[in-house]
């Protein structure tokens, strides 16, 4: 990216001043090295978001930002409904409420290494993954609506989890305001056989070891010690969310003119929050959030059953569950006053600081856990929200490593089997229905997650707590 396009506000803050139709500036948080490597489309897309009606303060991009669809991946933007603010289907994306869940196991590395292979096989056999896979749960129309209203709470009530899990999920496991009636029959049909499935692409389930602690105090509050084994699940709202994204992207793109909205890019399709279409989307999107929360809850149950069979001494308790493709209503301080804003995070994680009332009581003094998925075979991070993130980017942080190379290029560079063998030699077991998928997700096809996390921490968006490294990876 051409750095002369920016005003450098501090070592990790780069501003694009207001120009043309921009209503607010755009701000990217990143190191100089990440900025130089960043796709120049991030500049264009962050500027386009800054042109949308009702945007407040700035259009933000996180250190892992890359070229997205309309919004950059790693984009954060808040809108005020009373200033003509919009909700954007493109600004949430197709994989609504895609996110990461982290489970502690109560085990340490030596406890599992003897059974590492067995564990990998059992997880691969019993967690449905990849295109065309179906779950064990098939929902009828009434059950579908109950799931879309109840989220992870619906799953726990159905026996897929324990009530204590819910405290550790954003929105206590149930997104309020969901309207299953606003979800198309097509979207529901896509989901009918997909509950409890991992999906494919960059979605995965990993057994990981805590290899480094950066903040002992917060790690203690999070219940993490060096050498601990944890499980991370990365997936979203499956076919239902994808279809809702598709349905509303078109409807909003077609209707934008009638709301007097000029779209700098059709993918930014949006509608005023107060409009019928805006409200309809919000109801459907919240139903998709519940679908994602229920899905990760069911996967949690499947993982617990596998561990119970192979490592019965394991006690799988939820550390936290975050979503990184959402639009949520939050109170934020703006110019000294408190305002209720619709915060879009597309490939960005909510990161409430210490003391925030929406952080579970047991974790509140530490700040919200922020779970950052790295690439297959490298490492992931557990961070904690900071107080200053509120003023920096509406309490938001990065979400992952971000691709450095296209799938096509990755496929020309590596063979799936070679990636699996190389990782196995390093003690990391990969299981996947698609060797081509493994090649496309090769570790070096992604940016260095450590550089991203270091930049997020240095910018003050979140605090580093622990690094975890994979022992087993089930790839969809």
């Amino acid at each position, binding site marked *: 990216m051409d750095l002369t396009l920016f005003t450098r506000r501090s070592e990790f803050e780069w501003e694009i001043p207001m120009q043309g139709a921009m209503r607010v500036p755009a701000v990217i948080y990143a190191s100089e090295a990440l900025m130089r490597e960043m796709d120049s489309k991030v500049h264009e897309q962050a500027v386009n978001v800054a042109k949308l009606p009702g945007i407040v303060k700035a259009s933000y991009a996180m250190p892992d930002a890359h070229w997205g*669809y*309309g919004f950059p991946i790693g984009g954060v933007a808040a809108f005020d409904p009373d200033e003509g603010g919009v909700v954007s289907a*493109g600004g949430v*994306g*197709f*994989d609504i409420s895609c996110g990461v869940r982290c489970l502690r196991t109560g085990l340490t590395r030596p406890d599992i290494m003897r059974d590492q292979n067995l564990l990998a096989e059992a997880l691969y056999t019993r967690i449905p993954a*990849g*295109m*065309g*896979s*179906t779950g064990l749960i098939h929902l009828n129309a009434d059950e579908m609506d109950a799931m879309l209203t109840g989220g992870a709470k619906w799953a726990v009530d159905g026996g897929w989890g324990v009530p204590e899990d819910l405290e550790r999920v954003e929105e206590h496991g149930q997104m309020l305001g969901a309207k299953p009636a606003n979800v198309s029959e*097509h979207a529901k*049909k*896509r989901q009918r056989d997909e509950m409890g499935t991992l*999906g*494919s*692409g960059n979605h995965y389930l990993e057994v990981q070891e805590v290899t480094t602690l950066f903040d002992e105090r917060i790690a203690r509050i999070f219940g993490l010690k060096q050498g601990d084994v944890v499980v991370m699940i990365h997936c979203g709202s499956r*076919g239902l969310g*994808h*279809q809702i*994204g*598709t349905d509303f*992207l*078109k409807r909003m*793109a*077609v209707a934008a003119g009638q709301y007097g909205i000029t779209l700098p*890019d*059709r*993918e930014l*399709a949006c509608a005023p929050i107060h409009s019928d279409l805006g409200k309809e989307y919000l109801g459907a999107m919240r139903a998709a959030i519940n679908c994602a929360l229920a899905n990760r809850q069911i996967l949690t149950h499947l993982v617990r059953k596998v561990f119970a069979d192979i490592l019965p001494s394991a006690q799988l308790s939820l550390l936290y569950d975050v979503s990184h493709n959402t639009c949520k209503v939050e109170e934020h301080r703006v110019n000294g006053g408190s305002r209720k804003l619709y915060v879009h995070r597309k490939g960005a994680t909510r990161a409430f600081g210490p003391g925030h009332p929406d952080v579970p009581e047991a974790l509140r003094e530490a700040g919200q856990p922020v779970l950052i998925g790295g690439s297959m075979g490298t490492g992931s991070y557990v961070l904690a929200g900071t107080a200053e993130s509120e003023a920096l980017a509406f309490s938001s942080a990065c979400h992952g490593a971000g691709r450095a190379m*296209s*799938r*096509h290029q990755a496929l020309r560079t590596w063979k799936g089997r070679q990636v699996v063998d190389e990782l196995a030699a390093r003690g990391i077991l990969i299981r996947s*229905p*698609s*060797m*081509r*998928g493994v090649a*496309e997700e090769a570790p070096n096809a992604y940016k260095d997650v450590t550089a991203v996390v270091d930049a997020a921490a240095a910018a003050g968006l979140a605090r580093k707590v622990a690094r975890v490294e994979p022992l087993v990876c089930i790839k969809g």
Partner: protein
Amino acid sequence: MGIRGFGATEAEAFEQAALAMTAVVTDIEAVVAREVITIECESPDHELLFADWLNSLIYEMSTRKMLFRRFSVRLEGARLHAQAWGERVDPVRHHPAVEIKGATYTELRVAREREQWVAQTVVDV
């Protein structure tokens, strides 16, 4: 992932782009044209119609668990009528690398360029 179809006609460019979309998931040579399905859609302009065509196929791929390798598209004003031939996905034979979430409007373009038509967009995987 970007996909682009070229053709002597607009309909042929739509067909070729659909084939490119299957190639995003698997080796098209591994897909057998066993069954046929019918797709109809309508949109205010041909770029949105192209995205609709791909999204209709994505819906059929998702709900029927199918992959498609042969397409026949007919365009009539704002409407598209099509048939797609393919088979149920077989993980052992097809090794599907990704499932496609949706066709986006990023880099969406349907146009005549010199002697041929081009239809392109980015699909989210």
